[in-house]
């Protein structure tokens, strides 16, 4: 089933009257269960594409269908609800709230969903176990290492059981061992049927996916299946 579809997707940033096109008519389809890597040099528009696909921003032109419904038909609040319930984000800079505990960070999406505190804690504990940070439950986010922070971020992305996870350079701030562990985790999630979209500028990260979209100058240059997909072992991988 097609989860995401775009037609001639465009995004133009305007700053002090200077128009900078970031997307120049991208067409793509992502089906449920895919692991798509979006790769391109910096400034190619890959992050812009992810932001629009992740319902964080609206396109300047073209159409974007999420679950078959055109994005512009959603109100801001409805987009917030989609981000909350159907999308999980993983960022390069982890973006945890440093003064909250690991548990509280992970439960944050559930807070906005209006889940009761007890259920929130139960659910957050489930996903903490999933990412193997049970012994860090009550640490402050600021007390964790980079790799641990990113695992907390993954747990947070999973807590609402989303249909799709967007990861923007998820290994960019990590050493290769921690980065490998994150990619391996994403592969495991994908194996269990979760749709994953990873944005990266590094080829070896892109190789973790089942399909790679090459973005150059705001256009999708190539769209190919990863024939020799790299399966990452538990020990991570060497660059």
């Amino acid at each position: 089933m097609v989860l995401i579809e775009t037609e001639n997707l465009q995004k133009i940033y305007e700053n002090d009257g200077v128009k900078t096109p970031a997307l120049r008519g991208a067409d793509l389809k992502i089906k449920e269960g895919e692991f798509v890597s979006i790769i391109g040099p910096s400034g190619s528009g890959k992050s812009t594409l992810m932001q629009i696909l992740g319902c964080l921003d609206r396109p300047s032109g073209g159409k974007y269908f999420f679950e078959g419904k055109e994005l512009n038909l959603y109100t801001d609040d409805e987009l917030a609800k989609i981000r909350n319930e159907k999308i999980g984000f993983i960022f390069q800079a982890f973006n945890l709230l440093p003064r909250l505990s690991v548990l509280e960070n992970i439960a944050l999406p559930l807070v906005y969903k209006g889940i009761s505190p007890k259920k929130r804690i139960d659910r957050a504990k489930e996903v903490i176990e999933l990412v193997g940070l049970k012994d860090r439950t009550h640490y402050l986010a600021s007390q964790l290492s980079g790799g641990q922070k990113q695992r907390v971020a993954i747990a947070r992305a999973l807590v609402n059981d989303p249909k799709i996870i967007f990861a923007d350079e998820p290994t960019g701030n990590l050493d290769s061992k921690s980065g490998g562990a994150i990619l391996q985790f994403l592969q495991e999630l994908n194996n269990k049927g979760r749709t994953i979209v990873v944005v990266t500028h590094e080829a070896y990260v892109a190789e973790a996916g089942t399909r790679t979209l090459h973005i150059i100058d705001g256009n999708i240059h190539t769209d190919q299946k990863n024939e020799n997909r790299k399966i990452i072992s538990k020990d991570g991988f060497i660059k």
Partner: protein
Amino acid sequence: MRFFDLFSMAFSGIFVHKNRSILTVLGIVIGITSVTAVMSIGQSAENLVVGEIQRFGPSNVFVLPGRQPNGPTDVAGTLLNDSLKLKDFEDMQKKENIPEAQHVIPYVFGFVSSSFGSETYDAMMIGSTDYAQKNFDLSVQDGRFFDEVDVEQKDRAVVLGSKIKDELFGNAQAIGEKIKVKDQKFTVIGVLAPEGQGSFVDFNKAIIGPYTSVQQNILGAKYFNRIIVDAVSVDAVPGVIRDIKTLLRNNHNIDDPEKDDFFIQTQEDLADRIKTVTSILTVLLASVAAISLIVGGVGIMNIMLASVTERTKEIGLRKSLGATNNNILFQFLLEALFLTLTGGFFGIVFGALLTWGLTEVAQKFAGIILEFSLSTTGIILALFVSISIGIGFGLFPALKASRKNPVESLYYYD
């Protein structure tokens, strides 16, 4: 999102930045403290003054010479007027003229210099009848108050206020001694117990004697500064006023009430007038204090704006996790509201402490017995203002936060 979560989110936002929060609310605390204290002290002062007036008894009717003053500059005219004569006083005492009067008390006064040995003191010399003691609720600490016989015989007998006694005699015995007033000798027959200050006469600094004697020996005049008519009851006051007017107009040959050479004040009039004055003063002072609240509010807005900028990334993250614009708006608005409410709460507490402290100081150092009271209006106003400031000055930063674009916020680098 649950309201409780919003609540605790805003609350923790304040606690996370304890020092900043404390500094932010300081302006509000100071403002609310001043407003609460000013209004409470204003109320205490009003209670004191009104209480002092009312202790003469609400059934007292004051007859004053001259015309009703039309402004502050008119007062001198009334003091110099000599329209209340002995005949008026005598006629007022007659039951057939004012049937509902139970007592008529004459009242004359003048400022004099008194001395005993080498000690001198400037005092107010008051002449009245023996009933003055009861009417003004004066208690004699030593000796006795003058009586009917003293009045009858124009005795040079005086009762001293406690302050004068201290100044002239120190700890020595005053009863039986002769003091000099205007180079004439008067025998001290009694000393008053110390009085609370605040009534229009400070009896602590007064020398009281029979009006007959004071008129003849000191003032050299036959008129009265006041004649106080004590009605049998409060209900009888209007009737008494009517009778006094009829009598005096008759005695002074006045046909046109516009040309009255006397005027009448009741305790209620006086209390009302003083209440008006203290209210105006209170409002005035509270307005000045309120300016500090506005300054405090601007301080809150300033810090909230800085906080919104500082937390841009957090706002972006929260939005990416599903926070709606309203979630963000209320988070920041509630934070501002908590800050000002906390400030308001501490302001009220400090205001109460300050009021209490000032009443103690007034009592210790000035002898003014101010009853501690908290102005409910002041507290309600303080809370109302705190909430308004929180919403008013918190709204703009909160709106700014809620309208932030999630993408720009998420990728904001400071």
